[in-house]
């Protein structure tokens, strides 16, 4: 069996979450009722003209900048001409000659290693209508027609299905951080075309590529690539040639099937859109977009590592923008990074995972969590009590401080009281005092007993100091 190198390129379409559509004043809202967010412009009635929505340019530009792309001096648009019922004008306004971003890259982490994924270009275009085939008829929903779409095209630089998915997840995360898209695959807000080819290690030229269009989930991207790699490998091993074509991935059989000849055979007759004059992208404008860019996951992670957070924890924190934002807000309340991280991971994230809740729906605000942490830090309550407060707060949707005020929860800090408790415990375990003197590690046993006795309400620092003092006396 030959060894082949897998070469993958991805074209990711992503709907932008602007208020209005890209060339019309229709609302850009995901709606279940068909044909409700439409206008003469979206339907391509005679006499309509496109008016470019600035918000969509800003959002596309944010993505281009976040992907470290070259930004053109001017924006131009082109028409891609073809007849299909999902395209009411008979052409799609897109960018072919001067896309909004070119020659960029994304840094992604794969198994703890940083990889650079090369981006060929990012362009801004309009989405088509969605078609629903019902029995013999086809229903057309024009709500999607004219929704701003960015297409992010990688170079053929990914070498495995897991790399491809890691890139997609990191891209999706970046889009969420930028707040340019909801990027929900189940709503078609992020869709992917995959190009796959195989080459022998000794080959200098890329193999013949096969395209798979419109794959609707990242899991399917992985499966489709694996299926196609296997198919191509078997074909090549048998000495068969790979045909350049478009194939469809069948989720049920987990195999790919031929759809049509290579895409190059469709001539889209591109030409410059005459109704949108060249728009110059002034340096001031680009730098203002740059300045207002949120800090992205890769950079946030770097910062967290600098603050002393472990790699595993940093990854957990940046996986979702909302969690990272939550964490940042706690830092903003003056809580030390590692402490904040421990509390979030041990209390908040474990609760989210257990209950399948979104952090956005949490009643416990970062401010509330910070207050509880402060109670613990200032020894007003113990850590265990803090956790109890938070758990109750999360379960009952009540402010933990309110719970704290109503409870008689306090920490035992009185030296006399603690000394009494400790003396009793030592008296009951005199055999272990001997071990202590011999240098055996029994200190923690005693602390455990103290905690048990006080149901965790004793201040651990004071208790530990007194315990040492009392043991040394014996």
């Amino acid at each position: 069996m030959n060894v082949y190198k897998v070469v993958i390129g991805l074209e990711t379409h992503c709907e932008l979450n602007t208020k209005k559509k890209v060339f019309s004043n229709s609302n850009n809202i995901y709606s279940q009722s068909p044909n409700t967010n439409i206008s003469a412009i979206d339907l391509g009635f005679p006499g309509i003209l496109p008016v470019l929505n600035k918000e969509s340019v800003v959002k596309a530009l944010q993505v281009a900048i976040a992907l470290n792309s070259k930004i053109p001096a001017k924006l131009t648009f082109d028409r891609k001409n073809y007849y299909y019922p999902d395209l009411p004008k008979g052409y799609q306004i897109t960018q072919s000659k001067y896309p909004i971003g070119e020659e960029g890259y994304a840094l992604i982490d794969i198994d703890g290693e940083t990889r650079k994924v090369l981006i060929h270009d990012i362009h801004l275009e309009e989405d088509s209508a969605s078609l629903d085939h019902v029995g013999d008829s086809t229903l057309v929903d024009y709500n999607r027609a004219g929704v701003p779409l960015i297409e992010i095209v990688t170079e053929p630089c990914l070498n495995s299905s897991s790399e491809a998915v890691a890139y997609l997840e990191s891209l999706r995360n970046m889009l969420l951080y930028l707040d340019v898209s909801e990027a929900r695959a189940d709503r078609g807000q992020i869709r992917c075309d995959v190009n796959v080819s195989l080459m022998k290690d000794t080959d200098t030229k890329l193999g013949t590529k096969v395209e798979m269009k419109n794959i609707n989930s990242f899991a399917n991207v992985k499966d489709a690539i694996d299926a196609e790699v296997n198919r191509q490998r078997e074909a090549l091993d048998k000495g068969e040639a790979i045909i350049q074509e478009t194939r469809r991935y069948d989720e049920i059989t987990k195999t790919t099937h031929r759809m049509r000849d290579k895409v190059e055979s469709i001539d889209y007759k591109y030409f410059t859109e005459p109704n949108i004059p060249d728009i110059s992208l002034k340096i001031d404008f680009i730098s203002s977009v740059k300045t207002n860019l949120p800090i992205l996951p890769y950079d946030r992670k770097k910062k967290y590592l600098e603050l002393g957070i472990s790699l595993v924890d940093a990854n957990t924190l940046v996986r979702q923008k909302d969690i990272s934002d939550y964490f940042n807000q706690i830092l903003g309340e003056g809580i030390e990074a590692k402490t904040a991280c421990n509390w979030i991971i041990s209390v908040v994230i474990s609760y989210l995972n257990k209950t399948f809740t979104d952090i956005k729906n949490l009643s416990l605000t970062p401010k509330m969590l910070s207050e509880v942490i402060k109670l613990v830090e200032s020894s007003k309550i113990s850590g265990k009590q803090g956790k109890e407060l938070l758990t109750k707060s999360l379960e009952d949707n009540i402010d933990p401080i309110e719970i704290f005020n109503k409870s008689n929860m306090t920490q035992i800090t009185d030296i006399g009281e603690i000394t009494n408790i400790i003396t009793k415990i030592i008296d009951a375990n005199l055999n272990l005092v001997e071990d202590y003197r011999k240098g055996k590690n029994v200190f923690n046993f005693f602390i455990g007993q103290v905690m048990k006795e006080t149901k965790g309400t004793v201040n651990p620092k004071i208790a530990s100091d007194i315990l040492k003092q009392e043991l040394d006396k014996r």
Partner: protein
Amino acid sequence: MSMLETHITYDEAVSRAKKYQDRYNSFVTIIDDYQNENSGILKGIPYALKDNLSTKGIITTASSNMLKDYIPSFDATVYEKLKASGAMLVGKTVLDELAMGGTGTTGHTGIVKNPWDEKRMIGGSSSGSASAVALGIVPFAIGSDTGDSIRKPASYAGVVGFKPTYGRVSRYGLFAFASSLDHVGCLTRNVLDSAIVIDTIKGHDKHDLTSLLDDDKSYRDLIKNDINGKKGFYLKEIIESIDSDEILDCFNKNLKSLKDLGVDISEVSIDKNLLRAIYPAYITISSAEATSNNSNLTGLLFGPREEQPSFDKIMMHQRTIGFSNLIKRRFVLGSYVLQKENQEKLFLNAQRIRRMVVNKINELFKQYDFYILPATSSIAPLFDDEIDRLSDKYLIAENHLVIGNFGGYPSITIPNGFVNKMPIGINITSRQKEDEVALSIAYHLEQTMNYKDQIAGDERV
């Protein structure tokens, strides 16, 4: 006298429109119950709109079977402005199907005849707008001009036709033929009325990204400015390609009149090959844009539709039966020049020719304020006249008006004489955004002749 001082009433206009309809076929739709309560500058003045301008609730066909029952859901900006001015819409005028063609013979409701001689064409594509004005049905009509579609029929009909600078008047609601060349303009019986109409319909439009910012000028005042000291030119090669002595005589008379008014006119020479390339470049660019612009006419969302087994069959069938052969020829041509393997050689070269022509004229405009040329090389052709499309007379003398569209220049045609009892016209074109220059030269030249406010048909004096 301008139409603001005296004009035909709306009721008279409607009855005149009806009276002439069978003979000349100016209208696709005559509106005899139009209501407009707005009081603006054009209050009560009747007018006509070319039937490729979107009018909410009023059938708009572009003179094509593909849109024979189409009722728009929105108003063109031009129409909105005219409504606000108080003007009264008499009807929607016939055009060459989808504004392509210059004969007035390809509309789906029949041919438009020349009011000065029914055996002759009126030209196009703003055919019905030109005839409605020439017949005195309305004092003004709105047209569109992609190659010469206002200015040539104006010449054949003995009326004024004005196409302002590209972007001066919004194209929103104009059924697109070739977006980079399409202009909205007007036809009137005197220059002052054209200035008044454009004053009313011009202005920046947020629906049209190519519309210019407001220039805050009143053309009706500026046209009266002294033209003494203005400098113009004409192109020697175009004059040499015209074989009609009568047309040249009228042209020379105009030159003399302008000189008497203190205007300096020079003869300028230009590469003949560049002039010969204008028409092919125009056909290439306009057909390419047209084929894309009209891809929405499929019968799927609007327009007639017949049951077919699949949507591609619906589209194919409807486009096969819906368009005339001339339109299909242009679409095939447009698709051909846009094909990957042809684009560089045909479409992009045509755009280079366009740029060369515009660069050349812009260079001349550094020195001169305007150019002046006979609008056409002959009077309106007979319906059965044959044209040699490869002759210099056709390629050079008959198609120079396209320069105005290539460069987006303001360009006006006014009547300047009669040849064999048929009107002819003279064209004046000036720098982009200087609409008042072309208008003022035309206005003063008009005063030196007797063709202002002339009417054809029964009312002819």
